[in-house]
């Protein structure tokens, strides 16, 4: 067996909410002083709130030891996952992928937060959608970012 064939495992560490990026930085800082802990990569995908993923060839006890040194890292999730299970985080889908013309969405940010709207146009390359508010008297097209909306209903069959 060569050194290359050592299988890396992926562990999940639970963090305080919204501190994922800080925890990643602190893990790196902790690693600088502890050569015995072998971690090859740390990531905090946006889709996975409250957790950071640690890629390491070490057993879980080492990760537990690492976790104790890092503020805002709550616990290590028991068990390990393989690389293939986290692979999809590395190539994020465009945020507008589930949205088509005619979809009913709710705006979740910006001045029209909470308003329902119907999708008129989808720009996949810019990840923007153009919507018209449901309750407005005159149709005014509003262009918003794809991640500022939540899909409520797909286009009704007509």
């Amino acid at each position, binding site marked *: 067996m060569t050194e290359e064939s050592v299988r890396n495992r992926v562990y999940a560490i639970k963090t305080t909410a919204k501190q994922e990026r800080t925890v990643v930085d602190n*893990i790196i800082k902790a690693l600088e002083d502890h050569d015995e802990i072998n*971690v*090859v*990569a740390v*990531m905090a995908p*946006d889709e996975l709130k409250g957790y950071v993923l640690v*890629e390491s060839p070490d057993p879980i006890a080492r990760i537990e030891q690492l976790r104790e040194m890092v503020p805002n890292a709550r616990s290590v999730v028991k068990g390990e996952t393989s690389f293939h299970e986290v692979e999809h985080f*590395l190539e*994020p889908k465009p945020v507008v992928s589930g949205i088509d013309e005619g979809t009913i969405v709710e705006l979740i940010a910006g001045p029209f937060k909470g308003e329902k709207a119907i999708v008129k146009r989808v720009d996949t390359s810019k990840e923007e959608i153009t919507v018209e508010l449901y309750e407005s008297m005159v149709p005014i097209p509003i262009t918003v970012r794809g991640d500022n909306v939540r899909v409520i209903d797909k286009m009704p069959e007509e």
Partner: protein
Amino acid sequence: MAPRNKKSLKVCRACHHVVEGESCMTCGSTNLSEDWAGYLYIVDPKNSEIAKKMNIDMPGRYALKVR
């Protein structure tokens, strides 16, 4: 309240590297973006499967997605 300086970090659109100055240290590009998501720190690119998948051969901070 802590200063929200994290927000001002920029990411190179070409190599996804997180940069603090006005140009990317690795590829020299000035095409930076403040709108990015997903944080990735590569420590050992040679032994990391994540780094291989992302085609990263330099250790450092990266973004998973840049707009």
